[in-house]
C-alpha cells in the first residue's frame, strides 16, 4: 500500500516594515500636491498610512529627486533590513535558526539585483553556504503565490527539510515618488514591507502546527497583459495601472477559484477563511462581489490595505499572519489564498488546517 504524500505545512509567518509611516495627508503635504485629481486618489484610497523610506525635504521644504542609482541602492539597503528582520521573526516563531534552512526563495519586484537578494541575505542571516536558493524577480503582486508554490513544491519533494520564502518589497525604491496625475494612483497605493513563511512537509506535523498547502491554480488573462506594467522613462521606472484592471480581475476571478475548489470537491461555502491580496479598494470590491464574499471574509485584506497600503507580493503573507494571530482557524477548516498582479495573473492556493 502506498501512503498518501505528506502535505507541506506553513509553520510560521514573520513580517517587518520600515519604521517610518506616512499618512496620505503627510504625503500630499510633503510633496506639495495641489492637483485636486491626485489628492482625490489619496483621499479615497482606503489607506490610512504606509511605511515608506523617503528622503528628508531640503531646507526649502522641497523633496529631493532620487535618481535610478539611488533608488537601487535604497532597495538593497532597506531589503536587507526588513528582509532580515522578517526572516528572523519567522524562524524565531518556529524556534528554528537560519542554519536549519535548506531552501531559500525570495520574491521582489521593486529592484533588480545581480547577484540576487538571497546571496546577500544568506550571508547576513548566517544560513549554510549549501542552502538552495531561488530569486523570483519582477512578477509583481501575485509573486507571493508563485513563491509559495516554489517553496511548497520543494518541501513536498523533500520531506523534513525546511523551505523559507521571503517576499520583500521596497515600493518606495521601485520608481520615482512623484504626485503627477499619471503616477497619482500608483503613488497613493504601494507601501514597503517584507514577510517570510516557513514551509515543511513532515508526517509528525498536525493542524496545530499550521495549515497544509494542498494545491494551486493559476490563471493568466493575456488580453490585459499591457494593462499593468513597468515603463522605463528617462532612465527610471514608472508603474502603469490600467483603470479597467480591478473589473477584469473580478470578471476572471471565478475561473481559477472554482477550478481549485472543484479539484478538491469543495464548494465556496466550505471555505472558512479567505486570504486575499490587498491590491486596492476596487479590486477587493470586485473579488467580493464576484465570489460572494462578505466584508468579514476580507477583513484582513482591508486592514492590511488600511495600515500598510499594497505591499505587492508580501500583502497576502501579512493577511495570513493576521489570520494566524486570530487563532480562529480550527482543524479541518479550509482557506483559499488569492493574489493577483501583472500578466494579468490570478494565482490561487488551497489551505487546510
Amino acid at each position: 500500500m502506498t501512503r498518501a504524500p505528506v502535505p507541506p505545512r506553513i509553520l510560521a509567518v514573520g513580517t517587518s516594515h520600515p519604521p517610518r509611516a506616512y499618512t496620505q495627508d503627510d504625503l500630499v503635504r510633503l510633496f506639495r500636491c495641489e492637483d485636486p485629481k491626485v489628492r482625490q486618489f489619496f483621499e479615497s484610497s482606503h489607506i490610512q498610512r504606509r511605511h515608506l523610506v523617503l528622503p528628508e525635504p531640503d531646507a526649502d521644504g522641497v523633496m529631493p529627486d532620487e535618481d535610478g542609482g539611488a533608488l537601487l541602492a535604497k532597495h538593497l539597503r532597506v531589503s536587507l533590513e526588513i528582509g532580515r528582520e522578517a526572516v528572523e521573526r519567522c524562524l524565531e516563531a518556529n524556534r528554528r535558526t537560519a542554519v536549519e534552512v535548506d531552501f531559500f526563495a525570495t520574491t521582489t519586484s521593486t529592484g533588480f539585483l545581480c547577484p540576487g537578494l538571497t546571496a546577500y541575505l544568506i550571508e547576513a542571516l548566517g544560513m549554510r553556504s549549501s542552502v538552495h536558493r531561488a530569486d523570483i524577480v519582477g512578477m509583481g503582486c501575485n509573486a507571493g503565490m508563485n513563491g509559495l508554490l516554489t517553496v511548497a513544491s520543494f518541501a513536498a519533494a523533500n520531506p523534513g527539510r525546511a523551505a523559507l520564502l521571503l517576499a520583500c518589497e521596497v515600493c518606495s525604491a521601485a520608481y520615482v515618488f512623484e504626485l503627477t496625475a499619471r503616477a497619482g494612483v500608483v503613488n497613493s497605493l504601494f507601501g514597503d514591507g517584507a514577510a517570510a513563511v516557513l514551509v515543511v512537509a513532515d508526517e509528525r506535523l498536525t493542524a496545530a502546527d499550521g495549515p497544509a498547502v494542498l494545491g494551486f491554480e493559476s490563471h493568466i488573462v493575456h488580453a490585459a497583459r499591457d494593462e499593468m506594467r513597468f515603463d522605463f522613462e528617462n532612465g527610471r521606472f514608472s508603474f502603469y495601472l490600467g483603470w479597467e484592471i480591478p473589473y477584469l480581475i473580478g470578471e476572471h476571478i471565478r475561473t481559477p477559484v472554482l477550478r481549485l475548489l472543484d479539484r478538491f470537491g469543495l464548494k465556496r461555502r466550505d471555505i472558512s477563511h479567505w486570504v486575499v491580496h490587498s491590491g486596492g479598494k476596487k479590486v477587493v470590491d470586485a473579488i467580493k462581489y464576484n465570489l460572494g464574499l462578505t466584508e468579514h471574509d476580507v477583513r484582513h485584506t482591508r486592514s492590511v490595505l488600511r495600515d500598510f497600503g499594497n505591499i505587492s507580493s508580501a500583502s497576502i503573507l501579512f493577511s495570513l499572519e493576521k489570520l494566524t494571530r486570530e487563532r480562529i482557524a480550527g482543524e479541518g477548516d479550509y482557506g483559499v489564498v488569492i493574489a493577483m498582479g501583472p500578466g494579468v495573473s490570478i494565482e490561487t492556493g488551497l489551505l487546510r488546517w
Partner: protein
Amino acid sequence: MSETTLRLDRVGPVATVTLDRPDRGNAISMTMVRELEQLCARLEDEAAETVLVIRGAGGTFCSGIDLLDFPPEAKPDIRGFSRWEKACRTIERLPMVTIAAIDGECAGGGLQLALTCDARVATEGASFQLHEVRDGFLPGMGTFRLAKFIGLGRARFMAMTGRRVTAGEAFELGIVDRVCPAAGLDAAVGATIAAFGEIHRDAVELTRRLFDESFEIPYEDFLGCFLAAQHRAIQSEAFKALVREAHERGVPRPRR
C-alpha cells in the same frame, strides 16, 4: 436526503419548502436549522429552480424558536442563535427569488425568516409578532432587519411591546407585500411569482445584497460595491442579448 422538519416540493421553476412541524406550530428547532441550511445548499448546487417559496404546514407559518430545544437543566447555549442567523443569511444569499407565503401565526424567528425573503404574501388571518422582549430575551437579528422594512420607530414599538399585528396592518407598515383571502394563498403566491417576470439569478442575488448593504456603507464605498456588482451583471449573456436586440430593433430600451 430525508427531511424530518421540512418538506420540499419541486414544480417547474418553483421550489417550495414547507416548515413541517404542525404539532409544534412549526417552531424552529436546531434540526430544522440544520436541514434548512442543507436544503439551501442543495438548491444552490443543483440550480434547477429560480424561485423558493417558504410556507408553514397546518395553518401556521412559524411560531418562533422551539424552547423545548433548550435542555431545562443545562446552561443555555448561544451557538444555536448563531447557527440560526447563519441559516437566515444563507437564504439571503440565494441566487433565487425568495417568497414567504404566510398563513396564521408568524412570530419571533418566523418573522425573521419571512424578512429574509424578497416578498411576503399573507392571508387576511395572518398575524405578525416579535414576542421575545416581553418574554425576557431578544428578537434575534430582527433588531437588525425589521427597522429597515418599517423604520426605527415602528420597529422599536413593535418589538418592545410585543404587539401582535394583523395582516392588513402589516401591509400598511411595509412588512407584507400582498394580502389575500384565506383560501387564496396559492393564487396570490402564483401572482407574486409572475410579478418577478424573467428571473436572472445573478441580478437577483446582487440587487438584494446591495439593498442590504445600502444601510451599512457610506456613499463613496457603496459606489465601488455597486460598480463591481454591475460589472458582473453586464458581463452576463442576458445583458449581451439585450444589447444585441436593441441594436436589431433600433430601439434604446428593452422590450417590455
